[in-house]
Structures are given as structure tokens and as C-alpha cells.
């Protein structure tokens, strides 16, 4: 077994119920810095709930979540974002009342300071900041290959590119941990290959990725470790090879009889 690196995220006995239904049942796992960790499981396994708990959208919960050694308990979603956790959404949450580049500019919120007074009077620092925001947004659009679509309304883009808008927006917050929720849903095979390359590049840039996905081909291709959830319980954890030959996982995906 390898020596454990530094854990960026530690989930401890995380438990969440919705009116008696266990959505996440005492789940414990670690995410090592610089890795791509896949979270897989059949529909309804609690993957998205797990994401919503980590990013502060579903308080309260039992157990604890530590990010860089600090508990996230009781923190509001926007302050969790300010710690360096960014995410995309399974059901796209692109701001459709803005252009593509404005979507990404909005995500430079944490890197800028100007308030109502500064912006109303167009103070020099506010104008300087605005210029930096635009530059940074364009750089992040470059990263996902959307520079040409910068000034288009997001709804005019194909679904796959709208997903890239979300990834660019998440990257613009300069996260250290990126949570990607079902990026391959609705994508064609060649788009999934591009996406896999993009996620590897993101990790190459030093950003740890936690990836929820039920399309196996994406996860198995790029993940360093895989966590398998079923009915809210962690049923397996390990390398992609270990997971592929794990009987519990095969049963969960294909049914007990197989």
C-alpha cells in the first residue's frame, strides 16, 4: 500500500436522512490532494446528496466533513465556496440571464472587492478590478475551449458546451477542490473523451477533483480512486481495477443474481 498523501477532504460518519429515508448512511472516506476520486453508484444512491452536503446546501447533517483539516459544519454554502471548494451541477445551473463570459465573470466574485459605492461611482480601483475580472474570465473560457462563444447567450449553446460553461465558472473561483456532478450525462462518446482530457488537465493544474458519475467509462478512465455508493451506503472503495472486480459493486449495478 502506498504511503497516504495529504488529505484535502475527510468525510467522517456522514449521515443524512429525509423524513426517515436514509440518503447518506454513516459514510466515511478521504480524498487525497491532487487526485481524481470518482463517486459512482446506481441512480438514487445518494451521490448528489453527498455533493450537496459537502458544499453546504443541505444542512443539517450528522457526522462531520473536514476540508484541509477544518470542519465545514455550520458553514453557509457561499462561505464554503470561499474556502476553495467549487462545484458544477447535475441539473445545469448556468445563469441564463447573462452571456457566457458574464457567467464566468460572476464567479470572480471572491477575487474582487468593489462594493455598491465603488461600482456606482466607478472608482479607479473598481474599474481596474473589472478589467482583471474580464481577463480572468476569458482565460478560464480558454481553458475549456469556449473563447469563441464568450459573448453568446448560454442557452444558444449545445448542452455539452453549457456544461463546459459551468466548469469554466467553477474554475474561475480558483478552487483547490472541484466537485463535478454528472458531467457526462447527455453527452456523446467523443464529447466524453474530450471531457476526460479536460478533467485530467484540471487535475494537472493542481486541482483535486471529486467526480460523481454513473457513466462508468469516464470514471474508470481517469479516476485514481473510486468510491461506490448504493442506497446511501458506501459499499466499496479502491482503485479502478479493484472496483471493477468487486462482487458487491457488480451486484449493485447488475442485480444480485449475476
Amino acid at each position, binding site marked *: 500500500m502506498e504511503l497516504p498523501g495529504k488529505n484535502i477532504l475527510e468525510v467522517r460518519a456522514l449521515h443524512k436522512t429525509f423524513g426517515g429515508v436514509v440518503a447518506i448512511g454513516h459514510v466515511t472516506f478521504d480524498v487525497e490532494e491532487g487526485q481524481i476520486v470518482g463517486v459512482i453508484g446506481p441512480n438514487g444512491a445518494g451521490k448528489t446528496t453527498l455533493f450537496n452536503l459537502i458544499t453546504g446546501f443541505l444542512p443539517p447533517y450528522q457526522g462531520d466533513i473536514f476540508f484541509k483539516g477544518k470542519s465545514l459544519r455550520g458553514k453557509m454554502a457561499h462561505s464554503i465556496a470561499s474556502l476553495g471548494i467549487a462545484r458544477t451541477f447535475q441539473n445545469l445551473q448556468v445563469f441564463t*440571464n447573462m452571456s457566457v463570459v*458574464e457567467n464566468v465573470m460572476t464567479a*470572480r466574485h471572491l477575487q474582487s472587492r468593489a462594493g455598491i459605492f465603488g*461600482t456606482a461611482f466607478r472608482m479607479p480601483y473598481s474599474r481596474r478590478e473589472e478589467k482583471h475580472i474580464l481577463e480572468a474570465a476569458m482565460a478560464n473560457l480558454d481553458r475549456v475551449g469556449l473563447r469563441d462563444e464568450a459573448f453568446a447567450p448560454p442557452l444558444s449553446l449545445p448542452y455539452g458546451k453549457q456544461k463546459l460553461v459551468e466548469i469554466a465558472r467553477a474554475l474561475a473561483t480558483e478552487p483547490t477542490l472541484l466537485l463535478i456532478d454528472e458531467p457526462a450525462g447527455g453527452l456523446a462518446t467523443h464529447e466524453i473523451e474530450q471531457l476526460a482530457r479536460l478533467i485530467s488537465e484540471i487535475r494537472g493544474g493542481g486541482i483535486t477533483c471529486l467526480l460523481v458519475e454513473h457513466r462508468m467509462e469516464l470514471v474508470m478512465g481517469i479516476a485514481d480512486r473510486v468510491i461506490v455508493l448504493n442506497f446511501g451506503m458506501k459499499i466499496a472503495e479502491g482503485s479502478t481495477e479493484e472496483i471493477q472486480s468487486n462482487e458487491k459493486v457488480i451486484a449493485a449495478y447488475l442485480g444480485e443474481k449475476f
Partner: protein
Amino acid sequence: MLLCAVALMPLVAKSPYYITVGNFIGIYGIVAIGLALLLGYAGQVSMAQAAFFGIGAYTSAILTTLTEMNPWLALVAGAMIAAGTAGILGVPLLKLEGHVLAVATMALSIVIYTLFVEWAHLTGGYDGIGGIPGLSLFGFQLKSDLHYYYLIWACVVAVFVLSHNIVHSRVGRALRSIHRFSGGSEMAAQSVGISPAKYKVQVFMISAFYASIAGSLYAHWIAFINPEPFGVFISILMLIMITIGGMGSLWGAMVGSAVIVLSGEFFRDIVPKVLPGAAGEMEHIAYGMILVLILLFMPAGLVSAPDALKRWRARISQKSDWRE
């Protein structure tokens, strides 16, 4: 160009009547711009704008008649009180959403209106406050409606420009990002570090600040106030204005203010002459009719008229193609 039109209007239209109408358009326009920021950009409804308008008017009236405070200082004091009220009450109020928020702000409007009526030893009750001194600017005493016309429209331009700057900035994007009925998403906003609660309260405070300034200008210009123009009906009228003009734009607020004031005057003065026996309430029917027509045929407001016209033309030409 529009600026020139506003500046030259009094020279062309000699009648003082038009100047009075222009003043009302400007005053309501300031309130409407604030409401456009709140509702049009951040998606938070308020039926309390007339109350903030009243806070400005009453603060100015009370402070300048009872304590002989400098009117400009009183104007600032009113705006601070209005923004402070919005800031304190906005924290719990803006946790509410949609219809519930509308009803809660309406309740606030009623409470403040009741204060204007019942706190009689300060506000004069239904009799109101008279003899409010005029404003002076660099030693120049503003006397005529025309003087106020230029002051009010200078304020409109200032408020418009400041709001325009806010909208096209980091703050403006944050506001649009939380407007869930026009394509924003509070969840996504939070995921990039924006606190929806903070921006909702801030923009509520700005809208109250603007409304209060408009109220102070109104009080000094008319020199007399009573509770009537600060009731819930006026709050609703403000909402109608920005709906008619077009919510997603600051121009819409000004267009809406102009349409409502002009059509109000038209129906109050002209219709009774044509239809003897038609009472002053005609204007309310007119507001309702205009609102319904706009919602049916131009839901994005009058500012979207050029687009709507283009679409309509395209449809016509398509039809004629088909006939050929």
C-alpha cells in the same frame, strides 16, 4: 439626445402644467429605478416603496419645519432612516420569497402609512404638514416649478448613471445571479461565493434610499404633504410602472413612470370632458387596462417594443410569402 429633450422641454412647452407633469415623472422615475434594481435585477418584490418615499418626505418636512434643519441635511437624514429601516427589516423580510415577500412588504407599507396618520403630533395626521421651506442651491433659492424641474431631473440623471454603473459591474452580476425568475440561480450564486442574503438586503437599502430622496424632493417642491401619496396604492402603482416599462432595464423604469403619469393626467382631465359624468377614478381603470395589455402583448415591457415590432414584421412577411 434624450438629455437634451429633457433639458429643452420647458422651453418648448410653455405651459406650467407640463412642467408639473415632468416633475412627477422625474420623482416617480427615481423611485422606479430603485425598484427596477430590486425587482428587475435581483428578483425581489417590494410593495413598500411608497412607504420609503413617505419616510423621505416626512423626515424632510418634520425636520425642516420643527427644527429648521438645513433641508439638504434633512434629505440625507431621511435617506439614512429609509435605508436603515430597509436594512434592519430587510434581514428577516428578504428570507421570504415570491408572494409571501410581496404580502410582507405590503404589511410594512401599511404599518408605515399608519404611522404617518396616527403619529399626529409629529405628522399632523390626515391634515399633514404645510409650510415646508423650499430648497436652495449654492445660495440660490428654488422657487418655481421650473427650478424644481431642473433639480429633480438632475437627480434622475445622477440616480440613473449610478444605477447603470452598479448594474454593469461585479455587484450587478451578483444581483442578476440571484434573480431566479429571469435565469439566475441562488444555488449557483452561492457556489461561486456570492451571499444572496447580503445582496438582497443591500439592494433593498438602495431602493429605499432612492425612494426617500424622491420623497424629500417632493415635499420641498409641493411644500405640503399628507399621508395620501404614501399609501399602499402608490406602492402598487410603482410596481405597475416598472412592469409596463420593462423590468429588466433602468430605461423601463423611466418609460413606465412617464406612461403612468401621462396616462393618469390624460384620463383624469380629458376623459371627463369627452364623457360627461366619468369621474376621476377613470385613471385606475386606465392603469389596469394598460397593465393587462402589456402583460398580454409585451411581457418584457415597453422597452422591448422594438424587438416585438421586428418579430411582428417578420411574422407578417412570412405570412405573405406563404400566400404567394
